[in-house]
């Protein structure tokens, strides 16, 4: 006796098939939402920033300082302050973060590593407002004012140090990944030639991981530029700032100027130029950090392919 099976009998139940294909569409649309978020960010920032750029007079962008309510939008004030504070942050974060990474990747016993790594991760979770409070309640009054007599209560140096503390875990974590990606055969070959541990680390492992370490510094710098609350609390409290290059003086950055404008959005809402400058600064910040992150990611990806 022969039985003939039709296609319908071989196919699975209609309900199961429908569920499977519906699930696919649900997941696909979720992925589309993440793209939508990017598009919305770019669209909102770009449109308002463009209307600012087209309405502002050229000489308003070059003035004695950043006074948005008075129509003075000197970008160099904010850019210089952002660069100074981020540079101080890097001077604090790179030696400490890199040192911790080398120690954890090359020297530490597994037991020490198991304690230190989670501690660094906890440190990464300290809210930035808390570091801002730390800057004005400890770094400036208890540390810096002992060394520098003429330091302002709100100053870029303390803000930079606090931002640096915030960036340490990030730099440590990316650097450690880069160091661990260096194949052990390099270390073994170096030791086999009679090199000491310190020689192996400095002359072999660090050069091999150099691009990854650079990526860590770049991503850390990008994070420092985008940091808002520390700077707003410790250096750029007011919504205005006069151009200056002293680390001992207060000064607003791109981000703190945005936060200050945001605090007053009730007053400046509408098609006011000050309100639109908020979006213009956002566009500037977005482009700077995007550029830095793209470079950093490209380096990390190349590294991944190499080993």
């Amino acid at each position, binding site marked *: 006796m022969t039985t003939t099976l039709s296609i319908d009998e071989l196919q699975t139940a209609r309900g199961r098939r429908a569920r499977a294909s519906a699930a696919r569409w649900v997941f696909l649309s979720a992925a*589309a*939402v993440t793209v939508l978020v990017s598009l919305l960010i770019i669209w*909102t920032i770009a449109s308002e920033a463009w209307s600012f750029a087209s309405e502002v007079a050229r000489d308003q962008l070059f003035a004695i300082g950043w006074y948005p309510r008075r129509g003075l939008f000197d970008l160099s004030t904010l850019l210089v302050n952002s660069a100074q504070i981020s540079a101080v942050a890097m001077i604090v974060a790179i030696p400490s*973060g890199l040192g911790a990474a080398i120690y954890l990747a090359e*020297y530490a016993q597994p037991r020490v590593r198991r304690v230190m790594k989670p501690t660094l991760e906890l440190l990464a*979770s300290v809210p930035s407002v808390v570091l801002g409070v730390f800057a004005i309640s400890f770094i400036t009054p208890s540390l810096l004012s002992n060394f520098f007599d003429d330091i302002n209560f709100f100053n870029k140096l303390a803000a930079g140090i606090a931002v640096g503390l915030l960036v340490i875990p990030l730099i440590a974590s990316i650097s450690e990944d880069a160091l661990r990606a260096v194949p052990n055969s390099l270390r073994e070959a170096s030791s086999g030639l009679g090199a*000491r541990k310190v020689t192996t680390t400095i002359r072999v492992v660090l050069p091999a991981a150099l691009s990854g370490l650079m990526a860590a510094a770049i991503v850390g710098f990008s994070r420092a*530029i985008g940091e808002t609350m520390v700077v707003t609390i410790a250096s750029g409290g007011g919504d205005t700032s006069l151009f200056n290059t002293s680390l001992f003086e207060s000064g607003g950055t791109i981000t703190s100027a945005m936060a200050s404008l945001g605090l007053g959005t009730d007053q400046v809402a509408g098609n006011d130029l000050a309100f639109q400058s908020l979006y213009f600064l956002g566009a500037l910040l*977005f482009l700077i950090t995007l550029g830095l992150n793209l470079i950093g990611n490209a380096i990390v990806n190349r590294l991944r392919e190499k080993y």
Partner: protein
Amino acid sequence: MAVVTTPGQVARTTAADLEKRAGADVAGAVFKWTLIGATTFATAFLGVLLLVMVVDGWSVLSGSLGHFLTHGFSQSADNTGVWQGILGSLQIALVTLVLAVPIGVATAIYLVEYSGGSRFARLVELNVRNLAGVPSIVYGLLGLAVFVQTLENFTQGRTVVAGGMTLAAMVLPIVVITSVEALKAVPQELREAAYGVGATKWEVVSKQVVPAGASTILTGTVLALARALGEAAPLILVGAATGFISFGDANWLETFTGPFTALPVLIFNFARQPGEEWAANAAAASVVILVVVLMVNGFAIYLRNRFEKKW
């Protein structure tokens, strides 16, 4: 000088020699201790931070902690409290998780299980990686323009809902990235075995792959939660109140669509006020948020270690 002949003697002399030279390796020792110093600086700082905050906020923490935790903002420094901030932060975190976790995990499932490396999937991946690097305050602009202004009918303007949506957009990349890693770690055999007994793709994903990666996904979710709890900058742009607010007689549900504040925003507000008493309030509130955030993070790390799977 004694002549060494047997292998055993050679080994002993070499070992002794190495030991002697290790003691003389000044550069090596200096380098190692510099590294230990850097690591100690990086980690001990957390203790210093906590200590400074506890000392500065001691007058509030020891004297009126109960009052501080259960009262709203007041213009007078010795009468103010963080209750509204705690409530706001919890509500925002709730909205954030409800939005970010389903979308983030679903995106990760699409990327790992469904995409097959299509061009769209690569676009999504690149996009998520770049979103992860966007500064938080830029998300505030998104919140202000889209969630507060364009979607005002839905969010009622400057409310917990708008703030939660903003932070959801901010933590979405974190959830996606950790979930992708969790799903990629699930071994292929599990999927193949399920297909082998006739399961559909949806059944493989929902009954095998996601449960297998659930603990890691949960860890990522908790980390995202900690991030959302500590963030102030985007909420300031979205319009979290920095001063006195009154809920009137709104019930818990109605406060989702009324004026709101959050714990980090309150700390920012305390820190801006001049005077010792406000500084003590800022420090005390910092201790509160540190305890909450460190506990949430510690929980995530515990989860990861507890459920770490060796396939």
